[in-house]
């Protein structure tokens, strides 16, 4: 099967630190893969590289058979990628509804003048955008918070709004960067449900996560990073039994000093 995303030998060096070092992996169409790894293993850097937030030190990225490395950030997203941010980057002074509308901005075809003059085409377009926004807010469960400013949302709903905004761009591949970080067990259940629903709609998902309950629950294929390199890859079961992964997470037992 042809891969949707092909990552070939990508690297990112910050001075002498090799945050990502010669990493390659494939994401097949329709799958749900996860990238896990200890803190500082290069998971988020990897997403930042693919989406153009950082410039590659070396390597290549292809999406749907098209080279996307070196494109501007907005062009990369326009090819059908979307992401959420681990450290939340919402538009503080906009409402929840505004976020999902902003997510759809790139699909608007009516130009500036026609939009301001309120032509029939622009009215139709904004009505459609509004309709889709309500659907998305319903999906993530923020419909009753639509008029609330993002800055007054609690932590959990903020993460859900990140997902809704990313979905609003109508991506084919979605990167979820620690969607459950800082969430309660109850909220994690909601994220698990949400991820499954999104996947059923035909989206390909790459999940970066710390919370093992979420990772082991939803992912079909797991890639494990450590020090910017891939140390293992396989199903949840295979990963759990992999000695190198256990070592990376728990450390090795050193001989006692006599």
């Amino acid at each position, binding site marked *: 099967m042809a891969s949707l995303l092909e990552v070939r030998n990508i690297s990112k060096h910050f001075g002498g630190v090799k945050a990502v070092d010669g990493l390659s992996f494939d994401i097949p169409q329709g799958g749900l893969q996860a990238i896990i790894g200890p803190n500082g293993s290069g998971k988020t850097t990897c997403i930042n590289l693919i*989406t153009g937030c950082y410039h590659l030190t070396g390597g290549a990225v292809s999406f749907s058979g098209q080279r996307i490395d070196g494109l*501007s950030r907005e062009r990369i997203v326009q090819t059908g990628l*979307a992401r959420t941010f681990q450290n939340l*980057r919402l*538009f503080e002074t906009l409402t929840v509804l505004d976020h999902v*509308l*902003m*997510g759809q901005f790139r699909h*608007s075809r009516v130009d500036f003048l026609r939009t301001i003059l309120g032509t029939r085409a622009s009215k139709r377009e904004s009505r459609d955008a509004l309709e889709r926004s309500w659907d998305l807010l319903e999906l993530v469960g923020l419909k009753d918070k639509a008029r609330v400013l993002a800055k007054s949302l609690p932590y959990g709903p903020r993460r859900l709004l990140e997902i809704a905004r990313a979905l609003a761009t109508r991506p084919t591949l979605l990167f979820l960067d620690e969607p459950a970080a800082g969430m309660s067990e109850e909220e994690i259940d909601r994220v698990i449900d949400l991820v499954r629903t999104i996947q059923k709609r035909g989206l390909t998902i790459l999940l970066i996560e710390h919370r093992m309950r979420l990772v082991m629950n939803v992912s079909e294929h797991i890639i494990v990073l450590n020090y910017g390199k891939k140390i293992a890859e396989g199903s949840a079961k295979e990963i759990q039994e992999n000695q190198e992964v256990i070592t990376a997470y728990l450390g090795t037992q050193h001989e006692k000093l006599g």
Partner: protein
Amino acid sequence: MIRTGIRNGTTIALFALLGLVPVVTSAPYVIFVLNTVAINIILVLALNYILGFAGQVFLGTIAFFAVASYTYGLLFMKLGWGFWISLPFAIVVTGLLSLLMGIPTLRVRGAYLALMSMGFIIVVGDVLKNWMSFTGGVWGIPGIPRPVLGSFVLVENLHMFYLCWAFAFGLAWLTLLVEDSRFGRAFKAVRDDQLAVEMVGVSSTYLKVLAFVLCGVYTGIAGALFASFNVFISPEIFTFNYNAIFLCMLVVGGLSSVPGSVLGAILLTAAIEVLRPLKEKYLTVFALLIILIMLFEPGGLVVFIENAVQLCRRLWGSSKKPAPSGEDARG
């Protein structure tokens, strides 16, 4: 969240009050100041696109204003083109200049952008002063004729005021339409988080340049109106101080708010007249005003008005909720 209804109502009320002043008094001095108020409103609305909505610290609008005034003045004086031909030209020239300026400058941010914009003011000022054969140097351009409507010449300052007032009101309303459109939302998104805008597949540079061009177009109109109202323009008029005043008006009135821009322009233009005895020191008072605003109500004076209106509504016990769909009627 500022309710759309209150915002629009406040804007209309401010313009209505302004338009009714000549009915109460027609003292030549008052009418003269009113003209300045109307032109300043347009300039503050222009600055609001960049500094308020899109959140870019560009402080060089006075240079656009100067270029617009000179374009208008030169076309009128050298080629004899009337108001209705020179005005669109002034708009186009200033719009193009802002586009040319916008693309390189908007690659830098924050303090760097602020510094570049100040450099821009100096460059434009020096060109106007030293290109004697074209701009008239420090002597400027005297004797610019007043606009003609049909066969009616707007010789009276009162007539000129209603023309400026109409333009200011129209542009304020246009700004409200932009604010409620998907573009207004996108400008604010750029202000809040540029990277997040790019990560929903929208070019932040495109949005910033668009805000820039809108600023240029508004300033173009203000420049043409100013040149024809003032009859005389010279490099002395377009100073750093004048530039600082727009900034004060916007911040004191209410950054990112249309009624705030209008309120700030009205109050501070009046304040300048009241503080005339202080000469240049009036800027100290403005500085103090900005500090107080930043301390007690960063949203500007307009917030007090909006809160008061909301309080009145509650006291009146009106159970009418503001129509929630109003702000989403546009895309």
